């Protein structure tokens, strides 16, 4: 990635910062409600299911499967020269709950292909990434 400007996330947002704090510890974590354990995704403070404002960042097994993907052939941002692949990943622990991933180039993919998370440290900012797992 040398020479390419990176697009880094804001990591200290009140509602989503815990995702990146967990990533910095090497964990993939989702927001869960303390009142009823509902998954609050995208992260937010209030649980509409039980009315609780109390929540936690709970680690999940950092594995999932490919739900959908697109090979981007037309670059629109200097941080992302084409081709590259955007992934939608469904988490193994929480079926129906998805995260986004990025793979370089045009990898051979199929629906349901297993993926595993890794944690990329860019000058102190840690971003969860995904790679294809051997199955």
């Amino acid at each position, binding site marked *: 990635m040398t020479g390419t400007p990176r697009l880094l996330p804001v990591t200290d947002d009140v509602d989503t910062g815990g995702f990146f704090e967990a990533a910095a510890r090497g964990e993939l974590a989702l927001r869960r409600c303390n009142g009823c354990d509902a998954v609050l*995704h995208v992260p937010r403070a209030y649980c509409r299911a039980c009315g609780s404002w109390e929540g936690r960042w709970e680690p999940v097994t950092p594995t999932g499967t490919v739900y959908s993907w697109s090979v981007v052939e037309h670059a629109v941002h200097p941080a*992302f020269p084409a081709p590259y692949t955007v992934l939608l990943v469904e988490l193994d622990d929480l079926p129906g709950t998805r995260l986004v991933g990025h793979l370089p180039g045009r990898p051979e993919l199929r629906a349901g292909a297993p993926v595993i998370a890794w944690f990329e440290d860019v000058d102190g900012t840690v971003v969860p990434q995904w790679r294809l797992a051997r199955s």
Partner: protein
Amino acid sequence: MATSHRDRCAIAGIGTTDFSRASGRSELTLVAQAALAALEDAGLTAQDVDGIVRCDMDNVRHNDLVDVLGIPQLTYWSEVGPGGVAPPGMVAQAVAAILSGQATTVLVFRGLNGRSGRRFGQSALSEQRVGGAGSYDELFAPYGLVTPGQIFALMARRHMLEFGTTEEQLGAIATTCRARANDNPAAQMHAKTLSMDDYLGARLIADPLRLFDFCLETDGACAVVVTTVERARDLRQPPAVIRAVAQASTADPQPGIQFPTLFRESITSLPATAVSKVLYERAGLGPEDIDVAQLYDCFTITVLMQLEDWGFCEKGEGGAFAASGAIGLGGSLPINTGGGHLSEGYVHGMNHVLEGVRQIRGSSTSQVPGAETCLVTATPLPPGSGLILVADR
């Protein structure tokens, strides 16, 4: 359930600028031209206008038009959004203003230099740090997911995986809209034909979506004049009666504008599922009653999913329905008869409203013979809107 607004208001005038890649005019000038054309079409003047509804993403404000056109006094203004889901909802605001006694003659407009000015699909992200402040971009943009086209590409791939939808079926939508544009001298793509070979041979943008799965980029403006049916009958054009309007959200829209919609339970359906239920009930009509439809077409896949979500075919059968010829002139549901956003121009949902009026008047360049009902949708990713126009009976 009877609806108090059913058949009580009408679109009495429509106006548009030319559609181009470089208007050479300000957005205010474009909107003023479209607004004056709509008033002229209705046989009205700026003196008659007392209400304005705009889109939240428009750069032209209500006071701009009051001053530039010489509107003596507004007693109502509002705005609807976000962006492309606004136009039928803007007409809905006009109806609400008129029936609640807050205005009598409402100008509804959308104008943009969508090609020569700020372009959609260009990432607006210029900072090195992205997201926060409720945008949720921090969960998407760092992975290179930065445009609506990429979102719809992920949805299209999933639709292919779940239902066996094919590229040729998406191509049938692109070529159908192009054929309508070829009939429409005002369309940006009027002079350019599009064959299936042309479609399949075009470069991939975000696979499986190709160049012609994407809508155009357009400089232009469109406006309509809304008033009561009674008053419209005394004006220059036959009224396009507003049978019903609707805005509706689903139970899980997800926060933010667009990227979090990829975390909805289903990414192979759109908020059209909600808008269609509310609109059909308010109209007392169903999909079988629709003679012609203007379906929001930011991308071909948006149309394909709406064919299902608006009830014209079963879930998963949108591709086969599109490829069957049903959406062409002479089919059971001719769509986007001016060429749509894919081939006429992208005025962010608004040109579909104008084309709907033309079908009811019988003046479309791809006129559906005897059309008496026209559905106009604006149901891409966020909670959206729709309306049904009918002939005056």
